């Protein structure tokens, strides 16, 4: 019992209100100086971090550049140094070959991912909110989820040809599952206090779904989307390697056939950059759209 701690009555109301503004006049100059110094310190730390990041990249490139030149134990044809890769890269970039391939791959990934987002979130919502649907779909969905998506590459080529259809379908297939499963968990685990609050404030089914369930599940849904982005790239490469006429992975596979490791390395760097930028953009977008999200979760 807290009875013993509650003898302190009196003027607690005055002290619990915010401190009066009279302290602000002589403290203002100090506060401003403090704030400025604090900001300067943070900016300096950010610069230092960026500098170290760049140095890390330079160090990596330097080692890579040095290794093929150091001795006979590394074949420069199998591991061309970055300078050689760069010399190959520039003309391919200027001729438009690389931008064209990037565009094609990007379109496939984006289209497949968009389809997966729409179907995955819908499926997750429905299976989590409607018990009947959940039990009916559970074995099938989990069964398919257990099949490694890459195993479907040959089938997809048979069904959809080597055109755009099979690539988009594979990307959509692969990224559907993480999106569906995280949406399902997010919706299923919406705290009951939220649902009850909504109900006793007069919210109907649709309002509860749109204004309460979806936002409450959003952190999980976003985690699923982020995972979906990573999976899309994997399937994009698998699909393009198994028969395509353009695209980054196609470019790599022609490099392979011509024994041009430099071209293959360009593809690798492009894919890595792709994934990295997509992930960063996604995180930045979330911060902007959902200011409550980063700190609340």
């Amino acid at each position: 019992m807290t009875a013993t701690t509650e003898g302190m009555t009196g003027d607690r109301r005055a002290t619990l209100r915010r401190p009066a503004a009279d302290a602000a006049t002589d403290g203002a100059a100090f506060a401003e100086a403090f704030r400025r110094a604090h900001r300067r310190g943070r900016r300096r730390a950010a610069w230092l971090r960026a500098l170290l990041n760049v140095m890390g990249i330079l160090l990596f490139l330097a080692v890579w550049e040095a290794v093929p030149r150091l001795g006979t134990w590394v074949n420069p044809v199998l591991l061309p140094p970055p300078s050689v890769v760069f010399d190959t890269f520039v003309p391919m970039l200027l001729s438009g070959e690389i931008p064209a391939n990037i565009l094609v791959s990007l379109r496939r990934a984006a289209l497949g991912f968009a389809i997966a987002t729409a179907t995955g979130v819908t499926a997750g919502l429905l299976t989590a909110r409607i018990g009947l649907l959940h039990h009916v779909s559970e074995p099938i969905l989990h069964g398919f989820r257990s099949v490694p998506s890459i195993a479907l590459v040959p089938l997809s080529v048979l069904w959809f040809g080597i055109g755009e259809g099979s690539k988009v379908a594979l990307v959509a297939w692969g990224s559907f599952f993480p999106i569906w499963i995280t949406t399902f968990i997010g919706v299923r685990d919406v705290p009951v206090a939220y649902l009850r609050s909504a109900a006793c404030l007069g919210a109907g089914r649709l309002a509860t779904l749109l204004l309460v369930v979806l936002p409450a599940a959003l952190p999980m849904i976003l985690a699923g989307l982020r995972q979906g982005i990573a999976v899309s790239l994997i399937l994009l490469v698998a699909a393009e390697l198994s028969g395509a006429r353009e695209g980054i992975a196609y470019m790599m596979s022609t490099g392979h056939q011509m024994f041009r490791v430099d071209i293959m390395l360009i593809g690798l760097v492009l894919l890595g950059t792709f994934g990295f930028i997509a992930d960063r953009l996604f995180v930045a977008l979330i911060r902007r759209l959902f200011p409550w999200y980063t700190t609340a979760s």
Partner: protein
Amino acid sequence: MSGPLIDFDRVSQIYASRDGSPVWALRDVSLTVEAGEFVCLIGPSGCGKSTLIHLLAGFLTPTSGDVRFRGRPLAGPGPERGVVFQEYALFAWMTARQNVEFGLRMQRVSAPIRRRRALEALDRVGLRHAADRYPHELSGGMRQRVAVARALVVEPEVVLMDEPFAAVDAMTRTTLQEDLLRLWRETGVSVLFVTHNIDEAVFLAQRVVVMGAGPGVIREDLTVDLPYPRDRGSADFGREYARIAAALARGSRTAGGADGGTDGERRAA
């Protein structure tokens, strides 16, 4: 109108325990609350005081017996019965103002009026300055103030509070209690308030309903006949405190067992 606002008529609520045997959360409980009354439910954990609140809110339907509101049996939750939960019930993705506006939005009140009424409601709990903050930017006490504003803004006839101040520190709790009393007297709303804190019950309630566990029953229904505002240091306050403490002790003795029937689950074991 005639008859009580709230009427629990021989209500029983039975849960299945983990091994499937029945656990009586409430057994033949009858209780009436008049419009405008402030009633505290107090008792050990497992005495079914929260269950009583959940039944009245419409989150549960009784296994047997009737729960009537204004003479009519309940059909699910509704805005005429506001609820303030212990914690974590504010929508994290909405600012304080948007949280308070939610109920008005459900009533299709137009945006400018909604906004004005929400700000007024926040003003009444002393939080107008925090209207645009998100719940995670508020302290525990501030969050509960917003929760109270959110429940009151739709002008319910009764507010059900399930240990709403249990998770805030003692100093904040006393101010929250004073604010709640002020709001209660300003609005004339009925309050059904669950607590396990005798001091809180004596400070707030006109009536204190003492419950006992295993099975959940009402042991005593005591009137606290002290004028507001109540002085915690006064002799009268101490006397009421002792009276309720004694009723609670009697309850746990008759429930049997060394440390009293503090756990409804024990019966199932």
